[in-house]
């Protein structure tokens, strides 16, 4: 079968296939190599790594870099806070966005279009960094954990993805439940929500990744409270301190860290931070593909 198509195809077609394959292989290599290189560096001896030339396999294997990383109190605190904000933030976002999406997707609802517009506007207009900061300060959200999960809880984009999905469900479901005497909350919780599991998973994934990866809120609002630091913010401080001191930094602060240079320590911290996401995302593909498609292709 394959042979047949090869002999039948024109010479240009063959050239195209070859070029296309080269392009895609190059694409994959450029995407994957830097990540694998970071993993290799994270397992390599620090002083040895300065010589360069480490590619995919560590030259002198060690676990010292990871020991240094996990011996830092701030990183452990950051890990706890990051897990907490990811879990709590995702749950809160799911509950509120789905309820809002339910309300604006009810065709019979009197203020449906007004409420929808009210939220769509927030996608394009916002107060900006400074007024937002002052607001959070006056609400006592700064220097607290809640600044991570309360302000960004409802997002118009996530709401729209859910709304589009709910609008695609047949109207008859709701009507027959109403005839049976079900109220709106029952319809939402018992009938609509179970059918919306795929889109809930999509939004949960978007929110969780955003929570896991955000660092700017920790820097802007909780700079003074190290008990609310996050993993990404600690990683950022680690990376920038390395840059400023030009490789002579001793971020571990322990005597054992003399054998560890920052390049390998930052590689270890990077790997520790990205590992959970890298392990999970391949299994969640169909959810984010659905979400991106619903969210972007307006019909």
């Amino acid at each position, binding site marked *: 079968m394959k042979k047949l198509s090869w002999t039948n195809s*024109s010479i*240009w*077609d063959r050239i*195209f296939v070859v070029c*296309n394959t080269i*392009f*895609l292989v190059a*694409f*994959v290599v450029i*995407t994957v190599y*830097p*990540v694998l*290189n*970071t993993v290799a560096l994270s397992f390599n001896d620090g002083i040895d790594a*300065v010589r*360069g*030339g480490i590619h995919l396999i560590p030259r002198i294997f060690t676990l010292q870099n990871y020991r240094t990383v996990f011996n830092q109190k701030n990183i452990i605190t950051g890990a706890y806070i990051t897990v907490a904000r990811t879990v709590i933030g995702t749950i809160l976002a799911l509950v*509120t966005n789905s309820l*809002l999406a339910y*309300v604006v997707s*009810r065709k*019979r609802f*009197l*203020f449906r279009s007004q*409420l929808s517009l*009210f*939220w769509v506007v*927030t996608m394009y207009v*916002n*107060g*900006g*960094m*400074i*007024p937002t900061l*002052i*607001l959070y300060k006056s609400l006592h959200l700064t220097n607290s954990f809640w600044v991570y999960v309360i*302000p960004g809880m*409802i997002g118009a984009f996530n709401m729209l993805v859910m709304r589009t999905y709910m609008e695609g469900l047949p109207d008859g479901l709701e009507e027959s439940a109403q005839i049976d005497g079900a109220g709106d*909350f029952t319809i939402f919780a018992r009938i609509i929500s179970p059918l919306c599991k795929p889109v809930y998973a999509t939004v949960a994934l978007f929110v969780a990744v955003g929570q*896991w*990866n955000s*660092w*700017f809120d920790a820097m*802007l609002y909780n700079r003074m409270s190290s008990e609310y630091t996050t993993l*990404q913010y600690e*990683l950022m401080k680690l*990376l920038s301190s390395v840059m400023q001191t030009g490789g002579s930094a001793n971020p571990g602060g322990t005597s054992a860290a003399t054998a560890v240079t920052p*390049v390998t320590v930052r590689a270890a911290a*990077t790997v520790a931070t*990205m590992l959970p*996401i*890298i392990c999970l*995302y*391949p299994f969640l*593909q169909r959810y*984010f593909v659905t979400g*991106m498609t619903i969210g*972007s*292709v*307006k019909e």
Partner: protein
Amino acid sequence: MKARRITWKEIKRQKFLMLCTLCFVIYGILFYYVPLGGWIMAFQNYKPKDGLIGSQFVGLEKFKFLFSDATFLRVIRNTLAMGVLNLVCTFVMAIVFAILLNEVRSNLGKKAVQTISYLPHFLSWIIVTGILQDALSSTGIVNELLVNWGLVKGPISFFSIPKLFWPIVAFANVWKETGWNAIVYLAAITSIDPSLYEAATIDGAGRWAKIKNVTIPGIKPTIMILLIMNIGNVLNAGFEVQYLLGNGLVKPVADTIDIYTLTWGISQNDYSLGTAAGIFKSVVAIILIVAANQFAKKTGEQRLF
């Protein structure tokens, strides 16, 4: 459709929906609309101890200062230049990638490449810029290859050359988002009617002709919608990468409006000036999106509103 009469019975029946709406509106006003009221600060000499009510009004003084400040003008240029460069590069790459991936016959290969292509999207900018700094360092892979192939004599110090900063930022964006952005185009390509390809094959069209005459026209509406959506975000794309990759040597080309806001508003505590810079950004974003939408309307393409 005939307008329904609003009856008490109907309102009572919708009391749960009304209650939810009330909560969502209060939340929305508090977190999204109240900060807009903070725009008043841009017309004041805001002092935290005097508050919004007590601070002295200075009219357009802060804006006059902004537009006479050479740094701010340079910052506008940087934001626009990097925003447009990033938009063009990520857009073109995503479309090219989607079309080329679609031409792959093997389903397994397609799936594998696509899975790998999403990976960078899930990494934070901290990690992406960290990885990029490693790759471009003096002992990194890029310099190693350049030296080994004899293209340069000694390692290049990439992050200290102002000319290279914009391309590096564009590359970082392409690296991170190409696979992710391609999702939508791949979905659009699958929804093209297969009979169009069959007809083209019968007419003797080769691969190129099919891409040019079937695939690209098929995804054109998607391209237009995404373009309009993203044009409004051109100025928003100018913070994290520049903040994380910037350094003293490239500051004149690296600083963006958001970094300017951060420096003046947070570090120098001039809240009014920071707010004014933020307002300028918002207004330009709205003008851009409305203009793009009008343009799409004129040319008869799909549009947002």
